[in-house]
């Protein structure tokens, strides 16, 4: 792996770890999601650092950050933008919505109505929005971080499967350990002004785009393609799963595994990469009658043997 790429990734990693104390594993998944050009859904209790993480990520990549606080009265045009008549120029002008940012934080996304939620469909999948019959391209590094609260269910609209399938990963941050909380408290003592300064970006958007291009070229052997397909089929055949992995989900799984391999210093994917990213990848898109998604995912992993053979061709 070129040293430049590794240095950029290390800088991103340090910045995110500094923002979210004691959650290096979560940071690794967030990095993998960013490098794989996926979108991230964070489901956890209030105050655990969801917004902090999203803002730190936006600032670290040096892009434009936008935040949407989702409420039931939020309209699709509040996200995508709208057209207004400019009396001075006597022309209609398009006012871009927050979706035109590089990193969009959709806070408590399950509080928006399904109509508003669906406004993000096209943006997340195709990186474009269509307003007034005009198709407008979004940034190449467009990245959605959505959060939702799993506890409060009053006045919420659960995300439909189609929307969930557009997210690459679903993560739980969880409470930090004691040492991390102590470190967080110590770091928060000091002048107030220092906390309002925006930190410098460690990676430019162009560099991020280069990183993402590089990740897409991480090699995957044909035996691992077969392994991935077998795993996908296992999700569809599992008795407790009513909605297995879609082909889009399979592509995302491979891309996340590529990013994971790159994050661990390899230019090729191994079965470990596939297995290690399986829980967050599958958790967001498997639907069924099960109580514990992790148990089902473990069952699925255990039902497919790991390929062990001399590799043939590659990608």
């Amino acid at each position: 792996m070129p040293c430049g790429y590794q240095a950029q990734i290390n800088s991103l990693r340090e910045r995110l770890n500094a923002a979210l104390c004691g959650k290096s594993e979560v940071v690794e998944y967030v990095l993998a999601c960013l490098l794989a050009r996926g979108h991230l859904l964070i489901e956890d209790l209030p105050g655990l650092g969801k917004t902090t993480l999203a803002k730190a990520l936006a600032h670290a990549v040096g892009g434009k950050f936008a935040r949407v606080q989702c409420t039931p009265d939020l309209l699709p045009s509040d996200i995508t933008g709208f057209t207004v008549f400019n009396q001075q120029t006597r022309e209609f002008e398009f006012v871009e919505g927050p979706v035109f940012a590089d990193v969009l934080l959709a806070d408590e996304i399950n509080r928006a109505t399904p109509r508003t939620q669906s406004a993000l469909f096209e943006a997340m999948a195709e990186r474009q929005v269509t307003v007034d019959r005009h198709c407008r391209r979004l940034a190449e590094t467009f990245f959605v971080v959505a959060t939702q609260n799993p506890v409060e269910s009053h006045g919420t609209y659960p995300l439909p499967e189609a929307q969930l399938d557009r997210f690459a990963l679903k993560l739980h941050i969880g409470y930090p350990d004691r040492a991390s909380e102590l470190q967080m408290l110590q770091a928060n003592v000091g002048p107030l002004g220092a906390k309002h300064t925006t930190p410098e970006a460690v990676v430019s958007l162009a560099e991020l785009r280069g990183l993402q291009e590089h990740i897409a070229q991480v090699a995957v052997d044909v035996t691992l393609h077969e392994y991935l397909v077998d795993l996908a089929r296992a999700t569809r055949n599992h008795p407790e799963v009513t909605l297995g992995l879609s082909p889009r989900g399979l592509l995302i799984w491979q891309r996340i595994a590529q990013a994971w391999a790159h994050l661990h210093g390899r230019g090729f994917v191994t079965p470990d990469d596939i297995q290690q990213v399986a829980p967050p990848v599958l958790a967001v898109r498997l639907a069924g009658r099960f109580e514990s998604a992790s148990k089902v995912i473990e069952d699925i992993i255990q039902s497919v043997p790991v390929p062990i053979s001399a590799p043939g061709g590659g990608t």
Partner: protein
Amino acid sequence: VKIVHLDTNRIPAPLGLARLHIDKVDQPDFFAWAEGEVVQMTRERIPPFTVIRLVSQVPAAGQLQEWAFPREGRVLAEADVTFAVPNNEQAAAIAALAKAWAGNASRGWPQIAAVVSRLREQYEHAPEATVPAGCHDSVAHFLLDSHRGPDYLFASAAAILLRHLGYRTRLVSGFYAAPEKYDSRSRHTPVVAQDVHFWAEVELGFNHWVTVEATPGYEVLQPPTTLAQRCLQAMRSAWQWCWNHPASLAAGCVVLVATAWYRRHLLDFLLRSLWHIPASRSAEACILATVWLLDRRCSCVGRPRPKFVTLTSWYGNSDVTKEGDTEAVKRLFLRMVDWYLYAPSPIRRSTPAWSQQEVRATCLWAIRFWSLRRCYRRFSQSGPRMQGRST
């Protein structure tokens, strides 16, 4: 029986003929009784290449142990040839010999067997031996003087000795189908004119007879044994061998116990020796052979690597020591495993990471590191672990 050339119309059949079938002959008047229980065809000779299917019922020697043979004087008449004994000066000596050989054996088959075994063990079968000129009682000469002779003398001697003990016997001539001549490919036992043979038969009663084979080297065909009988016979033979060879038995037991005790090590030694064959071929083959050998060791200690657990997570988690060098080499080996098993060929060809010597040396280290003992200690303590993180 397949007749090729037999210049008689008598059908050669064993004792106790129960069923007889000749293909394309389905009328009973084609057959007739010859002397005794011998069946003959009502024509001059049996045509060549006639196939005859025979079923005979032969009592097994074991079933005769308790059989009550007819006693002398019960049905015997002076003219009964099956009980006649030579009335000369040697008769008393032969009778004494018969009683001596019978010894304390109870009347019946044990007594018959005792007499016959003496003949088979103490007398020599000499087909070319002849009776001296002027000898009027060839059986007495054979029994008392020469102790050697052809099969008809053995048969005659057995018949006479048993008659002295009160059994009805008769002398029979026929053909001997030697078991050693059996051809397993054609499933035939060829019988030729030179296979003519003499033996004696003892009456069981009610005109049923049983063969007594007194000539050494000849055996009576026994009825097919059951599986239980064969097992019993095998056990008896094994016990007999053990009794006769205690030293060999002890040595064999020691070797057997040692082999059983060290079976894993022996198998591992064999596999480790075979490892060198693929290991010298290429780096990929070396890695594959090493992984196979390590997996085999885990299976050997009763904790096979589950098929869904990756090599890195299985062997990477098996650290019993955190020594720096050891950990570094272990990680190097696991990196090699990943590289040679999962890096696509174009990448491996374009950027060779390690030489074959380095791979081989690292694999040898891995084979030494994950020894049977270490595998047993490590893998038998905990179940498989997945490295997947929960979200």
